[in-house]
């Protein structure tokens, strides 16, 4: 009895990891929070900064919402959740203002805008308000990690194509020692500006989603051998 409960719990957490990082990834599948996703990912450093901030917000809001879920009247739950999210974001914003001032300036309006990021309210409503604290917090962490990973991939690809460096400005995020992390891949007279501009974000994002779908299709093809299925071919025209 005890063993099966533990196993169930393990399964639940494994499922949360899979959902957050791959199957239901906020960036690639739910396509939530596209505005910061596309706007700040012109370099790996700012992508990582916003990714971590969003992850932290998700973790805290999911925990708090789950804690108060039994005391909040159903009718006014959304305003309450929004207030929780806004307070958490304010705290994070002030912390960044205090300890990472350069990054705070680089990210600008997109830190306060985490409040409006649909992932945060989406997870609060869909998961945290219905589950116990531990799974809710873990879900927030995983969704946040999934989002941060997509942000970082986008940021890295765009930075490499657009400016030929990787992790430039890491010192804004991690302190002065991090200057050694910056890699100069190539030096070009003409930068590929489009990769840094918003259209480049849409293009790279499209390729990322296509890549994920291709991997999914390959996995599905491997898992399922072709079944013999007899279906009637429709010959009459269906007017739409």
């Amino acid at each position, binding site marked *: 009895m005890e063993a099966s409960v533990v196993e169930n719990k393990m399964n639940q957490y494994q499922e949360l990891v899979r959902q957050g990082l791959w199957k239901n990834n906020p960036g690639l599948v739910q396509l939530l929070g596209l505005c910061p996703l596309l706007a700040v990912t012109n370099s790996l450093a700012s992508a990582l900064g916003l990714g971590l901030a969003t992850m932290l917000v998700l973790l805290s809001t999911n925990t708090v919402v789950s804690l108060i879920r039994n005391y909040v009247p159903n009718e006014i739950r959304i305003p309450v959740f929004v207030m929780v999210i806004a307070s958490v974001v304010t705290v994070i914003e002030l912390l960044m203002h205090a300890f990472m001032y350069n990054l705070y300036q680089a990210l600008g309006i997109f830190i306060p805008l985490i409040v409006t990021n649909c992932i945060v309210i989406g997870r609060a409503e869909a998961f945290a308000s219905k589950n116990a604290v531990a799974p809710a917090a873990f879900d927030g962490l995983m969704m946040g990690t999934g989002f941060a990973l997509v942000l970082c991939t986008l940021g890295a690809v765009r930075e490499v194509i657009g400016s030929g460096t990787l992790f430039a400005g890491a010192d804004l995020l991690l302190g002065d020692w991090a200057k050694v992390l910056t890699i100069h891949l190539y030096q070009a007279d*003409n*930068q*590929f*500006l*489009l990769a840094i*501009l918003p*259209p480049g974000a849409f293009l790279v994002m499209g390729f990322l989603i296509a890549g994920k779908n291709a991997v999914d299709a390959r996995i599905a093809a491997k898992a399922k051998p072709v079944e013999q299925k007899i279906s009637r071919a429709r010959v009459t025209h269906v007017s739409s």
Partner: protein
Amino acid sequence: MSFKIASSPHQHSQKTTAQLMKLVALAALPGIAVQSYFFGYGVLVQLLLAIITALLCEAAVLALRGKKVKAKLLDHSALVTALLLAVAIPSYAPWWLVVIGTAFAIIVVKQLYGGLGNNLFNPAMAAYVLLLVSFPLPMTSWLPAAPLQQQSLGPADAVCTIFTNFSCSGYSISQLRQDADGISMATPLDTLKTDLSQGYTTEESMKKPVFGWLSGEGWFWVNLAYLAGGLFLLQQKVIQWRIPVAVLGSLFSFSLIAWLISPDANASPLFQLFSGATMLAAFFIATDPVSASTTEKGRLVFGALIGGLTFVIRSYGGYPDAFAFAVMLANMTVPLIDYYTQPRTYGHKSKGVR
């Protein structure tokens, strides 16, 4: 985009896609010849680079997609895309520019959307916009026309400049663009735009040497040659009159109005018609059978939209020429235009054709 909504009678042309594309390429030859006379052998080198890249990319993607590579390659559509992009790029631009552009046109804009017949945007123009937005400096470094050039450039110079950024005698592209006084010369459209923004009148600006009879030195003849090629396409029934007439008509009318209101601050309508890429765009680019509107009324609307947008962007926008942007913006509206301009089929009421 699709031919389903054209109403009867469905008259068939005997020409295959390959024949049509070959005719388009043939009709562009006079324009290319005149352009390489005025702007150097670089035009031909760019053309060669673009065609090689286009065919390689097309073959690679077709093979990846499991299509019949040879049959599809021989429809020559990649060739025409490469050609249109190559003549739109400055003739002495570095080689990687045209290679990146063509690869983007073929792989992303054409093949990822499903290949010939399925692309939303004109591949050559989408690639041109990509290049112009990404690399504004090399994409606007047009040399002045041959009679104004300080150094005469041979075929070897063209190859040297394109691959090493320096001509065989060691001049960089920005030095090649200079006139006798050491001032870089821009294209006529660019010069006029800059001068107007600095408070000169059109008449004062037009006295500069980059301007010749009616429009820019050399540009007039290039446009005339493309006009001749376009008329040949019309005569061969490869394209219909509606799109080019609508493009030129609307560009002409808009600029005529502006010119009549304030002749000092606007270029003359004929200058607009024979400058930049006007004729090339009206006859060769806007008439792309895939990304243009397919209904008769729709083609008039589509063409007029391109002409109007071109005038607006040329006069008030940030870039000197505007056809690539105008064509792409108009491409976006094609599904809507086609929806509202479906012809009435016999026996149906005019509304609710669907």
